[in-house]
C-alpha cells in the first residue's frame, strides 16, 4: 500500500502534495527540473473569462521569511487556457490530476469559466478563488461576505462537471462564517489560506514598492495563521481541506494535516527551491516514521475524530 495516497472529492492522489495556484503556472518550466508525475496533483494559475494583463510592476517584494505579490491575475483567459495550457499538461502528463483555479469580477464570469473549464479532460476539480486580494474586483468581496460567497458557490456548483473547492481568505474577522456559507451552498471542500494583505514601502521613494500598493503575503511567515485557520474550519465542518500557507518541508506538511488538512499545496517554496515539491514528497516517509505515522489516511482519520 502507498502510505502517501489520499483521496478527496474528485481527487485520487498518490501523495498529498501539489503546487499552489499562481506559484507554478501550468508547470511547463518546472518540468525542466523534474518529472511532474511525481506530484499528487497540480493547481494551475487562475483562469478568468477574458485575458488579463495583470498589475503594474514591481509585482513582487521580498519580506522577512515571506514575500508579497500583486500579480493581478495575469492570464490568457479561459479559452487560451483550454486550447493551449491544459492540453499541454494532458498530453505530457495524462495521469496528473489538475485543479483549475477560477477567478473573476462578477458572478457570471465565475460561472462561465467554471462551466467551460470543468469540461477539460484533465481537470478533476475546481478551486474557486474568492479571495484574491490583488485586483479591485478579484473576488475578495465574495470571500468576505457570506451571502455573496453562498450565492457564488451555489451558482458555480450548478454548472461544474467536477467537485468545487472554495478558496478562503484569511483577511476576515471570522472565517467560520464564510466557511459555513460555502458549505451550505454545496461546496465539496475548502482550500486555505490565500494570502494576507500586506504592504512594503520603498524607503527611497517613500511610496509603496509594489505597483499595486498592496500585495498578498505568503511564505513561512504566515504558516502559523494558516495552521490556525485550517484548524478553525476543520472544527466546524466535515468537508475536506486542501491546506496551504508557508509549507516548505515534510514537517510543515504534517503540521497542516494535523491541523485538519487532507492534502497540502506548496506555493512560495517553489521560488525558494524549484524542487520543493519532490523534495517534500521524498522526505515524507522518513519524517512520518519519525513521528510514528503509518499512513496519511490514518492520520487524517485520527485528526477528524479529535476535531469533533
Amino acid at each position, binding site marked *: 500500500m502507498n502510505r502517501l495516497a489520499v483521496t478527496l472529492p474528485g481527487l485520487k492522489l498518490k501523495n498529498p502534495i501539489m503546487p499552489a495556484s499562481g506559484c507554478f503556472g501550468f508547470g511547463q*518550466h518546472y518540468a525542466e527540473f523534474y518529472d511532474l508525475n511525481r506530484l499528487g496533483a497540480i493547481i494551475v*494559475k487562475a483562469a478568468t473569462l477574458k485575458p488579463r*494583463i495583470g498589475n503594474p510592476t*514591481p509585482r513582487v*517584494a521580498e519580506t522577512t521569511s515571506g514575500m508579497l505579490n500583486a500579480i493581478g491575475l495575469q492570464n490568457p483567459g479561459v479559452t487560451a487556457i483550454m486550447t493551449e495550457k491544459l492540453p499541454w499538461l494532458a498530453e505530457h502528463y495524462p495521469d496528473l490530476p489538475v485543479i483549475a483555479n477560477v477567478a473573476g469580477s462578477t458572478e457570471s464570469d465565475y460561472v462561465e469559466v467554471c462551466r467551460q473549464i470543468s469540461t477539460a479532460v484533465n481537470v478533476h476539480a475546481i478551486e474557486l478563488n474568492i479571495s484574491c486580494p490583488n485586483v479591485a474586483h478579484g473576488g475578495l468581496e465574495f470571500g468576505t461576505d457570506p451571502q455573496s460567497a453562498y450565492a457564488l458557490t451555489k451558482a458555480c456548483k450548478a454548472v461544474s462537471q467536477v467537485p468545487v473547492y472554495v478558496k478562503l481568505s484569511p483577511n476576515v474577522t471570522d472565517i467560520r462564517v464564510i466557511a459555513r456559507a460555502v458549505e451550505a451552498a454545496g461546496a465539496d471542500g475548502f482550500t486555505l489560506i490565500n494570502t494576507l494583505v500586506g504592504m512594503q514601502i520603498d524607503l527611497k521613494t517613500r511610496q509603496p514598492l509594489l505597483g499595486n500598493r498592496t500585495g498578498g503575503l505568503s511564505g513561512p511567515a504566515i504558516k502559523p495563521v494558516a495552521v490556525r485557520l485550517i484548524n478553525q474550519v476543520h472544527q466546524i465542518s466535515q468537508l475536506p481541506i486542501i491546506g496551504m500557507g508557508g509549507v516548505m518541508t515534510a514537517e510543515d506538511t504534517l503540521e497542516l494535516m494535523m491541523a485538519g488538512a487532507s492534502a497540502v499545496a506548496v506555493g*512560495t517554496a517553489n521560488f525558494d527551491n524549484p*524542487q520543493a515539491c519532490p523534495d517534500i514528497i521524498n522526505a515524507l516517509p522518513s519524517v512520518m516514521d519519525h513521528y510514528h505515522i503509518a499512513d496519511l489516511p490514518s492520520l487524517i482519520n485520527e485528526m477528524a475524530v479529535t476535531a469533533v
Partner: protein
Amino acid sequence: MLQENLTVVSQRQLTADVFELTLQGKMATTDPVAGQFVDVKIPDSSHLLRRPFGIAQVDAAKSQLRLLYRTVGQGTAALSQVTAGTRLDTIGPLGHGFPTDFLQAGQHALIIGGGTGIPPLYALSRQLVAQGVEVTHAIGFGRQQQIFYEQEFRELGAVHYATDDGSYGFHGHIGLLLDAQFADAEFDAVYACGPRGLLMAVNNRYREHPHAYVSLESRMACGVGECYACVVPAQADPTKMYKVCDDGPVFATGEVAI
C-alpha cells in the same frame, strides 16, 4: 536549466561595493550564452527569493563561472560574506542571451554598459572577440572610484568611459557620450545593459537598428517563467506582456516598453 550547489572558489572585492564571485560546478560546463543569468539562493533562511545575476565569465575547462555584483541590499550584503568552500544553491543558466550568430569575423559591435550592467557584457565581449568581431565599449559610471574591470575590457577592444562627475573619461552620462563620439559611427551590432535611463537612451537611439539589443532587469519570483512577476509590456501593444526572466532578459530595441 539546472539546479545545483555551486562551490565558491573565491570572492574578491573590486570596489567599495562591487564583488567578484567565482563559482564551480557542472552549470559552468553547459556553456551559457552571454546575457543569460543565474538565480542564487541567499544563504540565510529568512530570504526566500533568489537573486538574479548576469553571468560575467565562463571557463568551461575549469567548470567555473564568475559573477560581478554590487551590494545594494540585505541579500547581496549576505552574499558578500560567503567564503571559499561555501556551497551556493543556484539555478541557471536562465533566460535568453544576446544574439550574436549573425555577426561575421571582422564586423564591428558596440557594447554600451553602465554600472553593474556590465557583467553580462564582459561575457559578451569575450565571446565576440573569440568570434573575430571587433568590439568597442562605451561604459558609464558615477565616478572614477566605481569603475571595475577596466583592464579586462581594455584587453578586448577600445573602451570609452563616461563619468557623471567627470572624474574619469567623458564628463556626463552615457547618452551624451554616445551623442558626442558615436553619433555617426556605424556598427553591425549594438548591445546594452545598465540602468533604466541608459536602456531608454539606447532603445530610442537604435530603435531602427536591425541588430540592437538591450538587457533588462525586473523583480522576479520564480525566475523561470511561471509566476508573471517580471513582466514588461510590448512597446507596440501594452496588453502584450513579455517575461524578462524567460522571454528576456535580452530584447531587441523597440520590442518592449522600458
